């Protein structure tokens, strides 16, 4: 095998998994860097910062960020984090590497489509990043790209010309890639399990990947159609999302008949399920990690499966809660409100079962376990503010304030990232054959845990004051004087939290060369990926979480172990 077919255009699921992981790590670093720059500008809007000038000689001439630059960083931060980090690592990265191993398959069902799907994702990322360097810079319409702002071209501002077009193309490519991935995952899980691996013996991670793939299969289909329509509006002069009588920048637009609300419906029909695409695989990882490190079976395995299926389906019924104040029919708001709180029920079931899993266990507080426990903590914190936002009457104040920013960063960003980190610490030995440093891991963990609470809880307070989000400067409003101290605190906490992530990167690199060699099954886990590599097909005889089974000879029974005696 040449270098190219082995490492670059490989069809091996492990290589593709690592490729996804590295791509997402790059994206995460870029996305985090952007957020730090944004915080810097927000806190010191007048300061002349040399770094800005070096990075953007035009948009930050003299070292002061222009509002459009700030908004474009915000747009890119959101897009990169949602699509190329949260959607990519848990499914593309971990899923590709571990799904075939966990179900005892040799590879994914369609290895070549798998490779294609990764390269389409990578291309989508490159296309998105190229928006930074084209004329006008990156788009400034936010990751939701609401028209008319996003549909009328460069008269709506710098970055809304070529940059915005690249954004749409990137998202369309990403849709195609995710669709290929989803087909591959579902087919693999349904067709390629080893003997004895019935659906209800699968580890919860596999269930999570299955449900996530099902959601992707449908959600990205809708976003793809919406993307085509937005592209037509931008490049071909149609007016799906543009009503009559628009006057932008003193120019009267010759468009007619469309409705901006239509985009919001289409986008959130995808966008809300997308939240679950980001978090469900993490839930699977956390369930597994909690079980392994408590030496106890998952509490209510079947309830966990049904809760995931319920979340997956209900996720499609609640898109309207992003649109309570959008001018949508107010009757729809009430219906969406009921459905939104209904989705809290399976989420509560999961939380309850996680607590049930660790209750009465023997908790080994390794770093992976700490991340999983912290996931439960932030999941509850973020979920509770979601209950407030799910009520249209309260959303009428909190919508588009920092309360929302705090909420979704905790529940979607932080929780998903914690589960990714739990997965990384748990699976790194399998991926590389070496252990990560526990000491570095703990320092990284404690600072990050405190850091995210210090960053995102104060945002709720800013939201209560009424601080609107997506403002590049808080100087124009009297009432925003009061929150500036708060923002300064948030910025400092964010700096610290971002800086300590370098420790994590260092840990990864250090471990590759100096890390302790890991055995085949360092955590004494039961699932098939921890078996030594062999060409024999495994025959599965038990469920995925047989820990501390009474009468067994040791406190775990692997899935292919026929008898514990």
């Amino acid at each position: 095998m040449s270098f190219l077919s082995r490492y670059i255009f490989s069809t091996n699921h492990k290589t593709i998994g690592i490729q996804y992981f590295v791509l997402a790590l790059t994206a995460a670093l870029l996305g985090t860097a952007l957020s730090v720059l944004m915080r810097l500008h927000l806190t010191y809007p007048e300061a002349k910062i040399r770094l800005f000038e070096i990075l953007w000689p035009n948009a930050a001439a003299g070292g002061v960020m222009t509002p459009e630059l700030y908004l474009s960083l915000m747009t890119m931060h959101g897009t990169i984090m949602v699509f190329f980090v949260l959607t990519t690592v848990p499914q593309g990265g971990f899923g590709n590497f571990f799904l075939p191993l966990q179900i005892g398959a040799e590879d994914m069902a369609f290895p070549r489509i798998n490779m294609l799907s990764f390269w389409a994702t990578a291309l989508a990322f490159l296309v998105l990043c190229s928006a930074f360097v084209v004329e006008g810079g990156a788009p400034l319409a936010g990751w939701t790209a609401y028209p008319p702002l996003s549909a009328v071209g460069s008269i709506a501002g710098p970055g809304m010309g070529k940059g915005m077009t690249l954004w749409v193309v990137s998202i369309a490519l990403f849709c195609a890639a995710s669709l290929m991935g989803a087909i591959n995952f579902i087919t693999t899980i349904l067709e390629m399990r080893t003997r004895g691996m019935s659906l209800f013996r699968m580890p919860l991670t596999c269930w999570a990947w299955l449900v996530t793939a099902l959601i992707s299969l449908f959600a990205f289909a809708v976003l793809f159609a919406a993307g085509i329509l937005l592209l037509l509006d931008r490049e071909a002069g149609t007016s799906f999302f543009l009503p009559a009588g628009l006057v932008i920048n003193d120019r009267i637009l010759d468009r007619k008949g469309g409705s901006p609300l239509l985009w919001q419906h289409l986008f959130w029909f995808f966008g809300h399920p997308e939240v679950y695409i980001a978090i469900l695989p993490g839930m699977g990882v956390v369930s597994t990690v909690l079980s392994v490190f408590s030496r106890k079976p998952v509490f209510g395995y079947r309830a966990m499966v049904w809760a995931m299926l319920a979340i997956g389906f209900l996720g499609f019924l609640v898109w309207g809660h992003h649109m309570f104040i959008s001018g949508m029919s107010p009757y729809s708001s009430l219906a969406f409100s009921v459905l939104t709180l209904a989705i809290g029920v399976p989420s509560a079931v999961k939380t309850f079962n996680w607590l049930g899993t660790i209750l009465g266990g023997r908790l080994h507080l390794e770093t992976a376990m700490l991340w999983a426990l912290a996931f439960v903590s932030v999941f509850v914190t973020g979920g509770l503010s979601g209950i407030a936002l799910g009520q249209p009457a309260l959303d009428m104040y909190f919508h588009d304030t920092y309360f929302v920013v705090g909420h979704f960063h905790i529940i979607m960003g932080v929780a998903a990232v914690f589960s990714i980190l739990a997965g990384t610490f748990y699976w790194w030995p399998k991926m590389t054959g070496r252990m990560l440093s526990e000491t570095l891991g703990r320092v990284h963990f404690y600072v990050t845990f405190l850091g995210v609470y210090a960053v995102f809880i104060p945002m709720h307070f800013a939201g209560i004051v009424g601080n609107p989000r997506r403002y590049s400067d808080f100087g124009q409003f009297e009432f925003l004087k009061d929150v500036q101290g708060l923002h300064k605190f948030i910025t400092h906490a964010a700096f610290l939290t971002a800086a300590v992530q370098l420790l994590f990167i260092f840990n990864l690199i250090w471990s590759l060369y100096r890390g302790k060699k890991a055995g085949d099954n360092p955590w004494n886990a039961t699932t098939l990926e921890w078996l030594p590599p062999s060409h024999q097909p495994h025959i599965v005889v038990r469920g995925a979480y047989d820990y501390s089974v009474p009468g067994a000879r040791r406190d775990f029974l692997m899935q292919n172990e026929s008898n514990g005696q």
Partner: protein
Amino acid sequence: MFFAILLWITAFAVAAGFFVKRWWFPPPISRHAMAFDSLFAANLIAGGIIFLAVQLALGFVIFRYRDRGQRATFSTGSTRLEIILISLTAILFLGAVAASSGLWSAVHFTSMQSSDLKIETAGKQFAWSFRYPGPDGKFGKTDVRLINDAAGNPFGIPDDDAAGKDDIATSALRIPAGRPVQLLLHSHDVLHNFFVRELRVKQDLVPGMEIPLRIQADKTGEYEIACSELCGLGHHQMRSVLIVMPAAEFDAWLAQQGKRKQ
């Protein structure tokens, strides 16, 4: 063990942050705003109890069951507990919906009265304008081609329209205290959002739609209007003020504006 203690401290710190109310809502100026505040308080108390209970329980379990060489108990779950929990959360969440739907309905389903003062509210990048129908009580026609801010015609009212002759256009929103007002929200270009903190209301302005919003302020004073939906690079400076005047003073102001027009 260290993590358990840290978790407890964090949970109490978060709860304290919401309890001390150093950063909080501005005082309410309408009945709706007061109802909003009590609804939020109820949510905060219920949510706060659940938050502390779960975080403290999590910390406790970590503390109590940390590895001290004990054997883990074997348990795969309990359907009965599961069902109890599902019922409890379902009741709690549906209760939350029921409790808050009244407030939503009061804003959106209260029928508009013909006696309501109507004010057209228009947003454009990045300014607000307001139009009063004048003594005849009728808004004149508008034509986007005639929009001219410099000439004081932000709505594009043609010169030859009788109904539009007496219309009054302003850049600040003046309303009488204690009287219901209908804002007819329009946008000329992109999405905007009308947000007044003290009223606790927020509504998008959508081009191609006319969205009515019924408000009533009871306390006089000056309050800031902020755009709360991303509308482009000047989003952060799209500001105006809501001036709530005593009803008599407002009538006098409106009459005077009308006179100046003629």
